[in-house]
């Protein structure tokens, strides 16, 4: 649960930053200045304040870490419930699709898409959501299959419950923990993928990205350690927090952890 608290702090900091911090794009004369009172985390090679940039980058990371996994959770849960409950053609198609998305790594798809179509944040988000949901659906499907033959389902049905009622009132609540755990790990992955793309120079240039900050820092490792260390700590702690959240949720609800949720 430490992860959850940390995340809340991150969100809080981001909101504060939006209200208070300096302009993350504002260049100045004071380039590559080590941390000081004016610039608590130093400045980069264009004299931009690193603290402002980290806070502004947090917004980027949070967007990409929250929206695609949330979309994937919604779509994946719906498809997984239906495929698991009814089986049939939908199930077949889902399994094939799942196999397909596993064959081509999502980072490669995102890389090719970002390089060819321009790496707008929403495009990266779209690729992530599109490649995340099949794995969510597969997990939900497996859960649903093991749940649908249980006695409470039969009991509910004998009381006259419709399929829609059983799916939305019983099964949805029971698969929710698996989805939540899976989404936390996907959020961590999403943050890493966005940063990785920005690091390779195919990210969104209109927003501040921790990955792009690290790419800029690569040339100044020798003269300005702070240009790499602080954005890196920010990114690593964000991912760590999301993974801790996933682990915490998995322990709380007794869900099989990351190994099952990966992919």
């Amino acid at each position: 649960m430490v992860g959850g608290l940390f995340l809340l702090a991150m969100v809080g900091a981001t909101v504060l930053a939006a209200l208070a911090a300096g302009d993350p794009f504002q260049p100045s004369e004071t380039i590559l200045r080590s941390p000081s009172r004016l610039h608590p985390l130093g400045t980069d090679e264009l004299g931009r304040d690193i603290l402002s940039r980290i806070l502004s980058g947090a917004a980027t990371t949070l967007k990409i870490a929250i929206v695609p996994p949330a979309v994937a959770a919604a779509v994946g849960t719906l498809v997984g419930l239906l495929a698991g409950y009814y089986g049939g053609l939908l199930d077949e198609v889902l399994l094939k699709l799942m196999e397909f998305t596993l064959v081509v790594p999502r980072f490669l798809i995102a890389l090719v898409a970002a390089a060819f179509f321009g790496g707008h944040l929403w495009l990266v988000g779209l690729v992530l959501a599109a490649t995340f949901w099949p794995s969510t659906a597969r997990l939900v499907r497996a859960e649903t299959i093991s749940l649908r033959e249980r006695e409470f389902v039969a009991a509910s049905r004998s009381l006259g419950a419709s399929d829609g009622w059983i799916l939305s009132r019983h099964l949805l609540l029971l698969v929710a923990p698996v989805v939540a755990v899976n989404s936390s790990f996907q959020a961590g992955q999403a943050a890493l993928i966005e940063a990785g793309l920005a690091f390779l120079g195919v990210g969104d240039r209109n927003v501040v990205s921790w990955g792009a900050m690290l790419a800029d820092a690569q040339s100044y490792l020798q003269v300005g350690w702070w240009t790499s260390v602080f954005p890196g700590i920010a990114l690593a702690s964000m991912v760590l927090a999301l993974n801790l959240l996933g682990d915490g949720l998995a322990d709380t609800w007794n869900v099989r952890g990351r190994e099952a949720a990966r992919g």
Partner: protein
Amino acid sequence: MRPDSFAVFLLRRLVSGLVLLAMVTAATFVLITATPGDTAQVLAGQAGADPAYLALIRRRLQLDRPLPYQIAAYLRQSAQGDLGFSVIQGRPVRDAIGGRLLASLLLAGTAFFLAALLGVTLGVIAAHRRGGVVDAAISVISLLAYSLPVFWLGQLLIALFAVRLHWLPAGGMRSADGSGGFGDVVHHLALPAVTLSLLLMALIVRVTRTAMSEALVEDYVSAARAKGASEPRVLIRHALPNALRPVVTVLTGYLGLILTGAVLVETVFVWPGLGRLLYDSVLARDTPVLAGLLLLSATLVVAANILADVLYRALDPRTALR
């Protein structure tokens, strides 16, 4: 139901794998055709090139043919080992990929070996000392290794070992003066291999720990202890073989990803492997090389999945009877 013979099972997996590969290739082509920008324009060098020249390029590369025809032709050729010609590199795609293969295999192989060795060892120790300080420390290490962005970790390692301590080179595969032999390559390999192995190691530690913890409470482990087997023997001879299945799943699951999955690590360390080639061909719009790499990557994933099934059978003879 009569269980399939192994040959039938293998054949079925091969066929479904080939179908999957054909689908991946088709998807790659659709993606590449859907991208903005025109291959012929890129090759002609400038916008506003002579239309006749553009038409010639299109005919040469069969870009004027319908997409399904292009896909079919590509599949037929690649089945014969011909992946096409990279006009940008000025040589066949097979040579472009082949030239990088050794470097990639060296990096990926070393990273795999390190990850498997360290991961299984730490996982076994953690399960053995479950709940203790050692277990907690190993958990923290694997969580960190799982969460650190590889490219940042690479930067930190360069900053420490290359820039500050001057122990290891910051990048490349050989020294620029060409003096070095095997030792020189190993010197250059150390940092990227460690960086690449960490994530995989973290995953292996976790699955090994979980599987070993489950195996260690089984009756056959108590039986082994009861007849006086030493603790290392119980761990390694009795519990470990039964805990390896999830480890095989993780390892083979990453086998296909690691050649092209090393894009970030190879970029940070300027390692001349396939990941770097992939990145360069994405930027240069070198679509034949890109398609070749995606096909190679998908082939590896499919092959790794089949390998996993074979290994499951080898590890657990009961699987064959089901």
